[in-house]
């Protein structure tokens, strides 16, 4: 899953980005409202963490512009004010959730997971496909009851594919949702990660889960 962090307080921004990356997100971060809007409009984020007090373009205006242009990416608003007016204003402008600073990072992660689940119409935090189980809370994967150890990137790819089970996912789409700006744009990287993922998930199992559709991308799930 790919997340955008828009927060002008540098220390907070950097540790948010770091924590989210550690939790399997591909993260872009910026401290400036206008730049945040540009990022949000030009990348398919799965979730946006937005601070309301930003220099230049404020968080609320950013949100308004984003929603006016038809962008439906879930937005979690961070605010240092706990006045009801501020929260109402944020939610009314199209925010999906809000948290008042200071917040628990674990809670932020849980709320982001909930937003992602909602986005992909997923109710259960445990995604099950055939005998594969992905626990999105602990980021633990089991195949036929056995724990499969995945790297952060492999997990990110698998999580996105599992949320789009049965759909054709293009390589660009996969790239957009599992890699951030900082990643070197190189299709080889994707191939390598996918092949690693295949080996860990599908090897030794009769039913394969990752299927290549030549020229179109990948399909995750039972082969039909």
């Amino acid at each position, binding site marked *: 899953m790919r997340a955008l962090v828009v927060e*002008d*307080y540098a*220390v907070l921004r950097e540790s948010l980005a770091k924590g989210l990356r*550690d939790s399997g997100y591909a993260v872009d971060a910026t401290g400036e409202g206008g730049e945040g809007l540009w990022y949000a409009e030009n990348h398919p984020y799965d979730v946006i963490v937005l601070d309301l*007090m930003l220099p230049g373009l*404020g968080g609320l205006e950013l949100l308004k512009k984003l929603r006016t242009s038809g962008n439906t990416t879930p937005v979690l608003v961070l605010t240092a004010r706990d006045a009801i007016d501020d929260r109402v204003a944020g939610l009314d402008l199209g925010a999906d959730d809000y948290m008042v*600073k*200071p917040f628990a990072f674990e809670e932020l992660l849980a709320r982001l997971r909930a937003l992602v689940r909602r986005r992909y119409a997923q109710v259960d935090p445990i995604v099950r496909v055939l005998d594969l189980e992905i626990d999105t809370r602990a980021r633990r994967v089991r195949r036929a009851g056995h724990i499969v150890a995945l790297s952060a990137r492999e997990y990110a790819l698998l999580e996105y594919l599992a949320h789009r089970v049965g759909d054709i996912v293009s390589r660009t789409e996969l790239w957009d949702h599992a890699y951030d700006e900082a990643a070197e744009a190189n299709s080889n990287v994707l191939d390598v990660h996918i092949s690693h993922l295949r080996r860990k998930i599908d090897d030794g199992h009769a039913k394969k889960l990752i299927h290549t559709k030549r020229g179109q991308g990948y399909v995750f799930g039972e082969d039909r």
Partner: protein
Amino acid sequence: MKPYSLRLRLVALMVAALGAALSAIAIFLYIGVRDAAWQQHDDSLLARARALSALVEHDEDGYEFEAPPTKDAFIELHLPNGKVIRIGEELLMSASVSRLADTGAPARIGFFDIELPDGRGGRGVELRFKPRDETGDAQELTLILAEGVAGVTKSIAAIRNLFVLVSLLALIVIAALVWWITGSALRPLAALGRSIDRIDDKTLTTRIPVENQPAELVAPVRKLNDLLARLETSFARERQFTADVSHELRTPLAGLRTVLEVTALADRSAPDYKHAIADAHAIVLQLGAIVENMLTLARLDAGQLPTTTSDVNLRELVDDCWKPHAAAAAARSLTFRNQLADTTQAIDREKLRVILANLLANAAEYTEAGGWIEVNANTAVIAVTDSGPALPDEHKIFDRLWRGDTARTATGAHCGIGLALARSLAEHIGLALTAENCSDGSVRFALQLSDAANLRVAPRV
């Protein structure tokens, strides 16, 4: 103690005043009517006495009195020889006869009250006259006529009772009317009371409309509205201050918590831990500075900061205060010039240090990259000038927690209260701090001796 009712008081006063007036009128009227009744009675008594006297004749045989049969009347005709012709019982009224006789005055008619022989109250008239005469030697005679006055006293009593009754009824009606009138007159007061009742700390925006108030209430209502306005501003300021303080503290706290929690998510390398500790330490210092500034401001507000004057080398003090910002300023290519002379001045060192630290922190943070900051003593005790950009508002910047760019979060220790604190401290040690956008685009913060600066000091908001 139960407060007295304005309405009851008004009603009581009005009823007492009107009651007294009414009673006086009633008493005068009663006296007039009574006297008129007696007058009329006396007139009719006299007329009858005269009619009786016309019946007395004098001829050779002496005096002749052919009295008609009377009912309920007592008549005496006193003849010159002392004889009395009496019709009815003896009246025992010789005293009155003699009295009238004694005076010898021209009065020929006299009235008197009398107790009739049968014990009833009565009224009599004494008339002296000369009877019709055939001989020419008739002498003056006295005729006394008396009769009961039960009828007159009865009707006078009836009139008196009527007056009392009417007066009482009128008083009751007046009391009711006054009760109603004062009620309606006091209605605006009651309405005002209800409007005031509805105001609490959440509805301080309410103003009581002056338009529909009676003239007497306009002034108090205006005063009340002024008071409400002042209360509203001070409540709003208080709320804003609390909100801003919590905001100023929450942002660094959020940073600190996230740094710690993210670091604890997994096992980290030693450089990672070092980095996190450095971040956390910087935030704690920043929080400490914020709290310190706020406490100083609060103590200042409470008047708990004594001043201690000593000889201070201003140039050295400015250099000291610049040190913490030097590295960050150099990174942004800011040039710093300290033009102060190397002399000492008697001043409160610690407070001046806080003032300068806040002014320099402000300049270091807000001056555009590549600009300059200069400290000099041109037409001021000390002036801190920077190359801009211009202040959005030269007065508001001294408001607590006001920021030129409202979107800025706390990134420096001065943190929105720095300039407010600087100004308050300056006032405290007899200096005036003013800010000015100069025509060349630079921004000048000047510390001047209060007296000289008074003319240019913006009013405190």
